């Protein structure tokens, strides 16, 4: 007779891995039937440290800003509360920026969560599907009276992150090891993240640019997206914005939408 699958061993082994208050499971032992003790701790350590390392790899600028000890303590809380639900670690930590925003000891760095959001978007862009960027020559061939009805397909890598703080400048200054000059964190900045070919690029969007790009990415026609951008910022420059988005590789194609 076929033996029944036994879910018990994993159900007993798993919970203490991320909960240091729990004892090692009694189902496992060291030599000669002795309690597993530090031997089980090897697994706890592997799990916790490797997941903290995964967050550190996804959020290097956040770690540089906070310092390693601060970051690892913060990440340890998150790892224990929200372990990954996918075996793909580059998908891990999507709720980490929200965790950072609410983390008690990070309240004096209100821009930190937005820097994390840019880093998360950077990694999504890095792994996004390959696609050929839209050539600006194609767009310049369109008759001006037809432009308002154009709808655009975003490149799979394209992301927008909006911030009430200077998150783009802070991100850029902390992604490498060069010394960081004094930054006025209070200037709102919006990020455009693109990957036209293989290199991820993060740009600072001009006034109205985030509303414009977000509208286009959601399928709004060009005319309507420009109207929304003007509403958001009287300084909105449509020619500069559309040229900037196309130059960055934000889109892969356009089509004629239904006339409004």
């Amino acid at each position, binding site marked *: 007779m*076929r*033996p*029944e*699958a*036994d*879910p*018990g*061993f*994993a*159900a007993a*082994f*798993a919970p203490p*891995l*991320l909960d240091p208050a729990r004892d090692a499971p*009694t*189902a*496992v*032992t*060291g*030599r000669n*039937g*002795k*309690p*597993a*003790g*530090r*031997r*089980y701790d*090897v*697994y706890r350590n*592997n*799990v916790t440290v*490797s*997941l903290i390392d*995964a967050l550190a790899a996804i959020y290097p600028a956040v770690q540089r800003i906070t310092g390693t000890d601060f970051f690892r303590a913060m990440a340890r809380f998150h790892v224990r509360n929200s*372990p*990954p*639900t*996918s*075996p*793909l*670690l*580059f998908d891990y930590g999507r709720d980490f920026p929200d965790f950072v925003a609410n983390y008690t000891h990070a309240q004096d760095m209100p821009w930190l969560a937005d820097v994390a959001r840019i880093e998360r978007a950077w990694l999504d*862009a*890095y*792994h*996004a*599907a*390959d*696609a050929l960027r839209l050539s600006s020559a194609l767009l310049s061939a369109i008759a001006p009276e037809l432009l308002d009805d154009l709808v655009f397909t975003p490149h*799979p*890598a394209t992301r927008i992150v909006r911030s009430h703080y200077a998150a783009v400048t802070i991100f850029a200054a902390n992604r490498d090891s060069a010394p960081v000059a004094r930054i006025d964190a209070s200037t709102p900045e919006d990020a455009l993240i693109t*990957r036209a070919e*293989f290199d991820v690029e993060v740009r600072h969007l001009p006034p109205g640019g985030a509303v414009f790009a977000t509208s286009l990415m959601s399928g709004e026609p060009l005319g309507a997206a420009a109207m929304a951008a003007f509403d958001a910022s009287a300084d909105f420059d449509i020619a500069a914005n559309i040229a900037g988005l196309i130059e960055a590789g934000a889109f892969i194609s356009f089509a004629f939408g239904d006339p409004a």
Partner: protein
Amino acid sequence: MITATKPATVPLRFSLPIGGVAGTSFKPEHLPAILGTGPQAGFFEVHAENYMGAGGAPHRALEAIRRDHALSLHGVCMSIGGPQPLDKTHLARFRGLVARYQPALISEHLAWSTHETSFFNDLLPLPYTEATLASVCDHIDEVQEAIRRPLLLENPSTYVTFRQSTMSETDFIRAITARTGCGLLLDINNVFVSATNHGYSALDYLADFPLAHVGEIHLAGHAEQTDDDGNLLLIDSHDGPVADAVWKLFEIIIARRGPVPTLIEWDSKIPEWPILRAEAAAAQAILDRCQTAEETEDRRAA
């Protein structure tokens, strides 16, 4: 539309099996050095999960490597040893990589890493019983059905044992090969680590291991700690050179089994490419000595 599961874009340029060659883990930071020195004689092994993104630089790097080298696809997260059903989405991604890159070797672990919805990112141990044997074999059948190829299953390194186990690890592994037809990836460092940790002889374990089914060997470095009683506890850390004792076991196994593809596994504190390549060259020298000895015997027999 380009997706992760597009059909093979890299021609299969290597006859199977690849024979007694030494390879290394492929680390992206080594790519310029590898391409700069021209095609290597051996093969490269990658962790499948690192190439399960839709596109971008990782696939470009792997295509550049695959163009001139045989590839070993090493899965780390399938959770074959766990009691719950395999993650069908993950299995489909694994199958997609096999189709796209046509690896010469495909392997996974006798371990588990997911329980319910949590992924623990470690190779966790299982008890060896009739019940776990049945579920492991079901999972291997499912993987082999998906990839239409035999899988090489890797023996684990462990730090604890389960009270409920009713058979030895080697009996368990032998039964898996008999029931599923899978091959084995013999990780000699894991054997040495487990033997030290549990106080048995690595040579006895290897004498009982079904060597005829071994299609690949792993060699790696380990770290030293102690357990609660002060006993030496070896950690399978993959962060340094292969230990002398592991080299010795490798020589014994190659003399007994004959040459098989052999990987130098190095996953953290990764050295410069020439150091990793030199470790592979040391393994290749041992494989070549055995190949020469076999040819000499063949000539005498003729």
